[in-house]
């Protein structure tokens, strides 16, 4: 549901609830009672649900993740003009949706992965406003980056299945698929955000019009 629809629905619900509250004698007629029930129970419930959906959906956007100052450098790292940086390569080539870049790679695709990501997000807000902020370069993942996140898109892709690097030993590919060999921390694809490299690095912000 788009934002304009949710905003219109919310405005309509506010107006109807106010009308019901301020209109005298509304509960005397049968129609008035039905209107009051719709304005004070059904429509608010639908509106709150739509608002919740909208808030959860926008919490997955790249601009939402980068709205905290501490994430600024991570946002810049998506623009490194160097394809050896994994997030930059994925972001700039639209291998992940640019509008949902952070969420695509940093959420768990298992059951309740989204809920877990939201709970982590609440902790981030707590640290941002009430805790001690770490330096951007000191920010670490909660757990090692799981291969399942990479395999969510790459599994079955010809480039992934046939690339020479994934067949250096007979069981290399199965080790990657089972998670025994980590994509990121086994020395193969280990150049990620590296925000410490930002000063002096060339950045790419899209093709000039």
């Amino acid at each position, binding site marked *: 549901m788009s*934002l304009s629809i*949710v*905003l219109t629905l*919310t*405005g309509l*619900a*506010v107006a109807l*609830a*106010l009308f*019901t*509250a*301020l209109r*005298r*004698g*509304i*509960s005397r007629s049968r129609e008035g009672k039905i209107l*009051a029930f719709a*304005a*004070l*129970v059904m429509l*608010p*419930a639908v*509106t*709150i649900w739509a*608002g*919740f959906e*909208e*808030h959860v959906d*926008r*919490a997955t*956007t790249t*601009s*939402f993740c980068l*709205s*905290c100052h501490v994430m600024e450098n991570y946002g810049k790292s998506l623009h490194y003009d160097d394809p050896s940086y994994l997030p930059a390569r994925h972001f700039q080539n639209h291998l992940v949706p640019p509008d949902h870049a952070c969420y695509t790679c940093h959420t768990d695709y298992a059951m309740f992965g989204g809920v877990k990501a939201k709970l982590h*997000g609440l902790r*981030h*807000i707590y640290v*941002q*406003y009430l805790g001690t902020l770490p330096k951007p370069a000191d920010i670490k993942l909660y757990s090692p980056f799981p291969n399942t996140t990479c395999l969510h898109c790459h599994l079955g892709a010809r480039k992934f299945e046939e690339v020479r690097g994934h067949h250096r030993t007979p069981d290399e590919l199965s080790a990657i698929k089972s998670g025994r060999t980590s994509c990121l921390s086994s020395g193969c694809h280990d150049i990620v955000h590296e925000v410490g490299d930002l000063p002096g690095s060339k950045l790419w912000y899209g093709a000039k019009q």
Partner: protein
Amino acid sequence: MMMEKHLRRAGILVSLGLFIQFLTLLPLHPLAFIGFTAFAIPVTAAGIIYFLLSLVRHEETVIGQPVPKERPD
């Protein structure tokens, strides 16, 4: 008369909660989400619950009233 009062209170609570939701939808910021979950949802839910409880109480009062005696023809 009592029902009107309850209706007004519930309506004000619901419209206030939904108005907060409207405000939280305008900026794209994590605090807007917190404002939505911490204020908009509870206030709106309180209005809905208050209205439903007042309906139930009103029904109980009506049911509990003595039935008027039938007049002999």
